[in-house]
């Protein structure tokens, strides 16, 4: 069972709840998330728009904007410190240094009035005790690492002089400049065209091997998941509904929502006809139902689904699903936990 020997724990998210206090009411964007991340691992968080993927990622670095607030739960990093409730100064020390983040829109994620080199150097100068020359050398080195030709020239360029793919490479260079343990990538390729997407993804895979950086990949693209991830969290309406290693998930999806996602993915074998869809839409996070949030769209819905929240059932080691359908096969129960 070599597969069970896991790397060191990097991040432990428990009961994370992030609520947005709007004028219309409390929107529960993330409502009780639990997951762990390990070193040298790529964890994909999958789900449709508005399911709380990005908010989960943002809350790790304490970047949730007003009126959002982490109301409950803990995010414990590898040294055992809880990042929820840290002082601004402590969390700034982690941002860009131990955990960095890249975003969906490379076109607007770089500051248009600063040179590329200065933007990369800024993080290095902030977190490490280096001279300006050393920081500049690091910037050039990082640009080379992310596959940018003529890095000495690019450090003096402004963002508008680069293409979208180049800018995302710069973002990656900037994020990795301080050699973080974890890179959070929030839909890093969604805004790029397909060929560039593939390049950026394989670059991230290479860098993960080279630098040993773990990646938390937020995406709605199952193709990207299959290509990149070691483990997958499927999120629905602010909760992780299923978590499993990538092969297990694709081979053996359990949650009706995961099954629906898999079915709606077109494949080369699909002959004409309409694509499969999941009927209905995500419940409004202002008015969440009492029972399972997926009940209204679920093909296997039972009466108890509308009554209470489903339990988390263990299907296999490392494969968990929150659904009443699997109560009977729940290993947790059988093991007497």
């Amino acid at each position, binding site marked *: 069972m070599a597969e069970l020997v896991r790397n060191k724990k990097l991040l432990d998210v428990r009961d994370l709840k992030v609520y947005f206090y709007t004028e219309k009411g409390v929107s529960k964007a993330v409502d009780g998330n639990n997951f762990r991340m390990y070193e040298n691992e790529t964890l994909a968080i999958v789900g449709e728009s508005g399911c709380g993927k990005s908010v989960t990622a943002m809350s790790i*670095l304490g*970047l949730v904007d007003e009126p959002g607030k982490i109301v409950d739960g803990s995010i414990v990093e590898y040294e055992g410190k809880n990042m929820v409730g840290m002082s*601004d100064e402590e969390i*700034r*020390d*982690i*941002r*860009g*240094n131990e955990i*960095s*983040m890249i*975003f969906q*829109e490379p076109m*607007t*994620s*770089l*500051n*248009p*009035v*600063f040179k590329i080199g200065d933007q990369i150097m*800024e*993080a290095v100068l*902030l*977190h490490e005790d280096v001279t300006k020359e050393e920081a500049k050398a690091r910037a050039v080195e990082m640009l080379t690492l992310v596959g940018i030709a003529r890095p000495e020239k690019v450090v003096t360029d*402004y963002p*508008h002089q680069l293409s979208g793919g180049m800018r995302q490479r710069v*973002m990656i260079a*900037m*994020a990795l400049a301080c050699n973080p343990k974890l890179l959070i990538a929030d839909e890093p390729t969604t805004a790029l065209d397909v060929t560039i997407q593939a390049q950026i993804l394989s670059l991230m895979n290479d860098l993960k091997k080279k630098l040993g950086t773990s990646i938390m990949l937020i995406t709605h693209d199952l193709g990207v998941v299959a290509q990149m991830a070691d483990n997958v969290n499927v999120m629905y309406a602010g909760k992780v509904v299923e978590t499993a290693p990538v092969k297990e998930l694709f081979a053996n999806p359990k949650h009706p929502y995961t099954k629906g996602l898999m079915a709606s993915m077109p494949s080369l074998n699909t002959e004409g006809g309409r694509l499969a869809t999941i009927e209905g839409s995500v419940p409004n996070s202002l008015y969440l139902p009492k029972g399972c949030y997926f009940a209204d769209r679920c093909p296997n819905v039972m009466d108890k689904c509308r009554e209470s929240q489903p339990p988390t059932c263990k299907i296999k080691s490392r494969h968990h699903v929150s659904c009443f359908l699997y109560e009977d096969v729940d290993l947790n129960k059988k093991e007497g936990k």
Partner: protein
Amino acid sequence: MIKYILKRLLNMIPVIFIISILIFATVRSMPGDPVNAYLGMGSKVTPEQKEVIREQLGLNGPMHEQYIRWAGRLVQGDLGESIKYKKPVTELIGEYIWNTFLLNVISLILAVLVSIPIGIKQATKKYSKFDNFWTVFSLFGISVPTFFFGLVLVFFLSLQLGLLPMNGMRDPIQAAFGYPNIFANLADVASHMVIPVIVLAFGSFSSLSRYVRNAMIDVINQDYIRTARAKGLKEKVVIYRHAFKNALIPLVTLLGSYIPSLFSGAMILETVFLWPGLGWILIEAINSRDLSVTTAVLLFSAVLMLLGNLLSDVLYSVVDPRIKTE
């Protein structure tokens, strides 16, 4: 860059030409006879003598001939002679322009220094009590006419409390007998400036702080601000370096348009406070049908406006690397 500026300056020539025709025609169409104004009420000059004076003042013949004569002298740098002050207009402008500049430059610097930090803080604390207070304050500043606010200040500070002089630029008695030293001279001018500077700065502050606030709000919601925060930068660095440098782009354009008003004067304010500047001269000239002064000051303001636009565009390319002037 130099090539660009030269090109823009050349482009200005036809614009100035058209503006000069408009100004000239408008000023000459003012009701009232400059010769009568020149001679004063109840003068017993005969119509024949009036014609001689008219010719001396260059006011004879049809309008287009007058314009050609005037434009010909203008090209040689001669703006004509003031009927009222009996001296060349260029000399007159040179004398009064610095008073206007002094007043405006100090109040603009004051307004900029105060409005930037307040506008930024308003943007970072949108809809807070602080923001709402300054929003109302600047709305007040934009709505209240300068002459009214000026007179209120004069009423309290000069008439009631006797702290500051009412109007003028210098104390007439002190000025007539000579100042004991340069500091007394400066102190006298400074005390006369306090109220007009407050009034002017109040107005500029009100609109500037709104611009700073709105420009900053636009920028703060941009993705690159989130990137800056994700790097671990302090909030101060995020706001004052990353956000403010971007907010400067629209602000610089705005400030460029303030530059001409530094020289062209605030007519109403200078009249209310009897401040001997260009605005005051202009009002006086209009009232006394001093055509050459009126035309010259108006044309001067128009040229300044054009130069201000050019300055805005040049500054724009300085603060925004995406804009190239070539």
